[in-house]
Structures are given as structure tokens and as C-alpha cells.
């Protein structure tokens, strides 16, 4: 088991330049920066249209120091497969291919390409950053928008449907590594990426990203909101290594403590959940409690 990375042992080399087009207080910028540190210098990135394309910049300036291929929405995983095939034909084996896509580009539009690549067992890391909506086009609902969230096309009642559980879909492909992370816990993200680098086949990451304009909170509370999502048990951090499920980092500690922060605090910190009634919140709280009761039972 590798030692946990601390702030002082985190590499200081940066792969992102300052002065990006990302919004003030963007959670993605934190996760992207730490994620690239973990992936390292020998990495080729594949990015479909998403907030990350905004962050990476317009021609002729790019904010990322690594080579990056910008592709169409539906072809992220297919393009990564193509790069892998090229690297193989050129005999380059030490280069890591990483696809970074948004939640819309993963759960809605890019899912079939990703599913195909995962089934073929292509050797790359797929990182989905989940800001729970199509944020860069003006906050529209996506497959991973949670129930009750107000978006541009669910403006009055909020989204009526449940959030799509993409990590579970990917785990059903029997991948060697599936993990969920959060921008509020960047060191956990770093450790997980370093851990999975040498594993065979497709590796899938789901990263929870607080988004100030889309979620409706003051940018300075970005990390606090991300942390609340984990501490309330609303979003759990786990990894599935060869089919073996294990809670990690802050979520693992919650099981030890047997105590969750009321989910109400997470909802009331953001304006997108303002139409949720107390009954609806109580309902969601019951679902979370049931989920965690199962975790507690497993721990005993």
C-alpha cells in the first residue's frame, strides 16, 4: 500500500498556466491541476467540448503544458483508442493517455464510445468531472443533475428525475479500477490516479466538481460546499479495485464516526436547491441514511 500524499510531498511542477478562462473559484481548475500532477509529464490528453475546453483556452494560446487533442462530444473514448493504437504502432509504451470529459460528455453523449472502449479494455484513464449540468453553455440539465436542482431548462420545479449513477455503470463493465473523487479532496484524487496508472484496461474516475455560477453559491465557499457533499453522505468517495468495493478518505472516516451532517445543510448552501421542500429533503435524507446503514453493516 502506497503512503498517502500530503501537501508537502505533492510535486511542485505545474502543468497549467495561470490566467485561464475558467470562472472565478472554479472547482474544476483545482481538480485539473492536481490531476495533471498525478498523470505526469508523459501524458496525452483527449478533451471533448466541455468547461475544460474553456479552461484550456482559445487558439493560439493554450493554458495546458501537455499535448491535448480536442475532439467531438461523442468520440472522446474512441479518439483515446486511436491515440493508443498510434502509440502502439510507433512502439511508444511509456506514454499515458487520459481522457477528461464533463458529465454531459460522459453520461449523456459520450457514453456509448466510453462503454465500447471499456468493453474492449483499452488501456487509458477516463476522468469524468461531474459539475452536475452542462455548465459552460449556461447551466442546462444533464443525466447527472441531481433531483430537485434548478437549471436553465428545469426552471420552476427543478429536475424531476434521479441522478444517473455513472460510476456504477462503469463498474458493471468489470473494469480494473473505478473511483469517485471530489475537488474538495485533491490529495485523495492524486493518490487514486497514481495508484491506478499501472493497472490494465480502462480506468474510470468520477470527480465531483463544485461550480459557483451553476450551483449558486459565493465562489469563496467552493471547497466548503464540495466537502459538505461528502460529509453529509450525499456523495461518497470510494474505489472499486478489480470488483472490490471500498470507501476511501473522508467517506471511510464517516463510517468510523457513524455520524453524518444533515443533508439539509448541503442543499441550503446552494440556490439551485431553493425550491426543495422540507418533505423532499426529509425524503432524500431517508435515502442517504438507508445507503449509509448498508455501509455501516458492511463495516461490522
Amino acid at each position, binding site marked *: 500500500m502506497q503512503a498517502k500524499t500530503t501537501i*508537502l510531498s505533492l510535486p511542485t511542477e505545474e502543468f497549467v498556466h*495561470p490566467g485561464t478562462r475558467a470562472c*472565478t473559484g472554479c472547482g474544476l481548475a*483545482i481538480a485539473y*491541476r492536481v490531476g495533471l500532477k498525478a498523470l505526469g509529464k508523459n501524458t496525452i490528453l483527449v478533451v471533448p467540448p466541455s468547461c475544460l475546453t474553456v479552461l484550456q*483556452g482559445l487558439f493560439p494560446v493554450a493554458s495546458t503544458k501537455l499535448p491535448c487533442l480536442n475532439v467531438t462530444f461523442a468520440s472522446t473514448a474512441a479518439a483515446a483508442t486511436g491515440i493508443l493504437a498510434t502509440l502502439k504502432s510507433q512502439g511508444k509504451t511509456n506514454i499515458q493517455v487520459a481522457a477528461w470529459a464533463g458529465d454531459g460528455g460522459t453520461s449523456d453523449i459520450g457514453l456509448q464510445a466510453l462503454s465500447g472502449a471499456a468493453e474492449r479494455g483499452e488501456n487509458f484513464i477516463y476522468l469524468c468531472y461531474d459539475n452536475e449540468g452542462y455548465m459552460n453553455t449556461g447551466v442546462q440539465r444533464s443525466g447527472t443533475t441531481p433531483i430537485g436542482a434548478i437549471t436553465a431548462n428545469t426552471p420552476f420545479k427543478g429536475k424531476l428525475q434521479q441522478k444517473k449513477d455513472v460510476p456504477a455503470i462503469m463498474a458493471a463493465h468489470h473494469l480494473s479500477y473505478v473511483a469517485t473523487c471530489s475537488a474538495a479532496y485533491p490529495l485523495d484524487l492524486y493518490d487514486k490516479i497514481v495508484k491506478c496508472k499501472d493497472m490494465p484496461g480502462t480506468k474510470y474516475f468520477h470527480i465531483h466538481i463544485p461550480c459557483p455560477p451553476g450551483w449558486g453559491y459565493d*465562489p469563496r465557499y*467552493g471547497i*466548503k460546499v464540495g466537502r459538505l457533499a461528502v460529509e453529509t453522505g450525499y456523495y461518497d468517495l470510494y474505489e472499486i479495485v478489480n470488483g472490490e468495493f471500498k470507501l476511501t478518505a473522508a467517506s471511510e472516516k464517516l463510517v468510523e464516526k457513524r455520524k453524518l451532517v444533515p443533508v439539509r445543510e448541503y442543499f441550503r448552501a446552494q440556490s439551485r436547491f431553493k425550491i426543495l421542500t422540507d418533505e423532499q429533503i426529509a425524503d432524500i435524507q431517508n435515502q442517504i441514511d438507508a445507503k449509509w446503514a448498508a455501509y455501516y453493516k458492511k463495516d461490522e
Partner: protein
Amino acid sequence: MGTRNYKRKTSHSENGPGDGGRTGSWRVERPILDKSLCIPCKRNKEACFICWLFCPEIVISRTIPPKIDLEYCKGCGICAEECPTKAIIMVDEAEFSKEDKE
């Protein structure tokens, strides 16, 4: 047309800072570091650096004392919020004179 002129037809960006311009002009509040409260400054050795880890814009350096690059700092205030000793406070930009801004 073929692929002979393909090289000229691709758009390929060079990396560099300031893709979004001088993003410091987005700032409404400016982070000010109080060295007497900052943990690495007080101990005079590498410690804490939470502000460096959580800065989305990579404008806080991992040095003693931490330096903030105001040319690109967007003033989100995450550093002020996450600092365990509250050594960074956010001050309204209007309080700084015009010359100081340039």
C-alpha cells in the same frame, strides 16, 4: 487536395500564461496575507500551504512567505476561506488607489 498541405491546415496552440487575458481585472476583492498569522512564516519552514493547494488559478506560490500574483488572481477567496489561521483576508479593491492597481 490530398494531405500534402495538411500541416498548414491544422490549428495548433502554443502553451502560455494569460489565455484569458489579465484575469486580475476580474477581481472584486483582493487577498491580503498577514505574515504574523501565516504558519510557514511563523515557523520559518515548509508547512501548511493549504492556500497553494486549493488555489484554482495557481497564483499563490509555495514559498515562505507565500506570494500572490495579483496579475492573474481572480479574487475567488477560496484561500481566505480555507486558511486555518485566517491569515488571508479579502479587502475590497476600491480601497486600493488607481496607481496601485496598475
